[in-house]
């Protein structure tokens, strides 16, 4: 029986390419309606292949995929109607204008031209592209092209939006405005699946996460529970004055990277206050503090490394 709460159900999905490369080796995954789901993995892990199968760009070898209860083997067109895809690479006609691209795309989903023109104004305005509507796509900057792909994917108002590295090569200001846009979209009820190499992005936006490595789903859980597994975090402290030697801190590992920068390792059950109390006692003033690495990044590396070691043992 179909899972009515699920936006996407993938069961035992396998894909072997013609040359014999097994890109996906039996992935099973469920993404609930309204979720903001991160699909992470190193390059070549099988993320894009999985997305390709969901969106019909790649033919699966076996397994099943259903989107909002529509099995892609039985009700492909209904499944497709629910999906909006933002692929990794620019794949629109560079010679068409921005408006032509989005209006044509709407037409492929049965949206009449009058409605498509209204939606084009809405989505292009939301993504700051309305002024560029008559420009050929080739004249747009990289960031504008990325936004155009998002606008195009929204033209048929999909319930499930899949974004394959949407912020790759986008400057930080634009990336942040895209995050805000995607968060608002998700709040309006659109289920979002995101692949990204910016783990900060996944941590900030997504509620649930799946990590794929070498075609296998190595982790699928909530962001919260994944992050709670992190045992140790490293903070970088910028100090007010110069230190000649590393300060002796009780039960806290530390390193002096230069005269005014101190790295401290804080365990999960330790309070950051302990660090500051001890530093204050030593009359060391902290100007600012930041994480050495993104928390999710640390876990990601740990999981992928674990996978590598398991693979080596086989």
């Amino acid at each position, binding site marked *: 029986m179909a899972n009515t709460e699920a936006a996407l159900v993938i069961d035992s999905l396998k894909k072997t390419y013609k040359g014999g490369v097994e890109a996906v080796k039996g992935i099973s995954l469920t993404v609930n309606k309204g979720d903001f789901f991160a699909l992470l993995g190193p390059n070549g892990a099988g993320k894009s292949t999985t997305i390709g199968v969901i969106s019909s760009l790649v033919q699966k070898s076996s397994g099943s995929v259903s989107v909002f209860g529509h099995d892609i083997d039985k009700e492909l067109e209904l499944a497709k109607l629910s999906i909006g895809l933002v692929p990794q690479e620019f794949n629109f006609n560079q010679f068409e204008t921005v408006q032509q691209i989005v*209006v044509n795309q709407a*037409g492929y989903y049965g949206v009449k031209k009058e409605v498509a023109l209204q939606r084009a104004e809405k989505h292009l305005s939301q993504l700051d592209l309305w002024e560029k509507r008559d420009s050929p796509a080739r004249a747009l900057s990289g960031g504008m092209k990325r936004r155009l792909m998002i606008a195009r994917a929204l033209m048929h108002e999909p319930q499930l939006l899949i974004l394959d590295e949407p912020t790759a090569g986008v400057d930080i200001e634009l990336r942040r405005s895209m995050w805000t846009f995607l968060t608002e979209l998700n709040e309006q009820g659109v289920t979002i699946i995101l692949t990204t190499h910016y783990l900060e992005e996944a941590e900030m936006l997504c509620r649930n996460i799946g990590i794929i490595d070498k075609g296998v789903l190595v982790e699928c859980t909530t962001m919260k529970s994944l992050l709670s597994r992190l045992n140790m975090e490293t903070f970088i402290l910028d100090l007010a004055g110069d230190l000649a030697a590393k300060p002796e801190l009780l039960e806290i590992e530390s390193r002096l990277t230069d005269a005014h920068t101190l790295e401290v390792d804080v365990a999960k059950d330790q309070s950051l206050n302990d660090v500051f109390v001890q530093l204050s006692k030593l009359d060391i003033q902290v100007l600012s503090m930041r994480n050495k690495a993104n928390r999710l990044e640390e876990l990601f590396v740990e999981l992928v490394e674990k996978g590598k070691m398991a693979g080596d043992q086989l």
Partner: protein
Amino acid sequence: MNMKALYFTAFKSILTKEINRFTRIWVQTLVPPAISMTLYFLIFGNLVGKRIGEMGGVSYMEFIAPGLIMMAVITSSYSNVASSFFSAKFQRNLEELIVAPVPHYVIIAGYVGGGVARGLCVGTIVTLVALFFVDISIQHVGLVAVTVFLTAVLFALAGLINAVFAKSYDDISIVPTFVLTPLTYLGGVFYSLSLLPDFWQGVSALNPVVYMINVFRFGFLGYADMSVPLSVAVMVGFCVGFWSLAYYLISRGIGLRT
């Protein structure tokens, strides 16, 4: 959702996109046939034709006019789909259609429709050019319309099949150069098949373009080298065959999906 209405809107979108494409680059798509046909009429029709005299009971200029129109239709409908579909595949914007709920037959119909539209546009332009050189009278209007339509469909389908297999831009120029042009030139555009020895008449019967030009010329002049019903049947047969092949290729995702 009414899926039939969806498919129709999708078809219109592909067709409009295709028509916009070839009209946007009209200097490359619509002007060259007009120029080359003017040269054909000037050189073959006017200069050389005057010395040839009559062929098939009419002046040489009148005789070659239907064949030249047909030649332009064939080349335009073929190259429109071959280059547009291959570009869409090469630049990956065909993915826009693959991810959309558009059935394969709608994709084929949309692209073929674009090829037919260009073929008919060019056919009209070339006919207008021909009117400067020769008085054209049409004996069987319906037959002319059916023939030009079927020919444009047939070669648009052939262009699509070529584009599906093509891996580079070179691949879409090989067929027109080595297959299409010889078939067209040897298809009776410039001569009546009755001038050929029996053996070569038999060989010509294997050339599908012969049937198209034959029935098209019959529609204009009322003169035919071969049986008109047979010619129409050959065209319909090729259309059905090419459509089936195109449908098979697209639905299997050959050259399109990994």
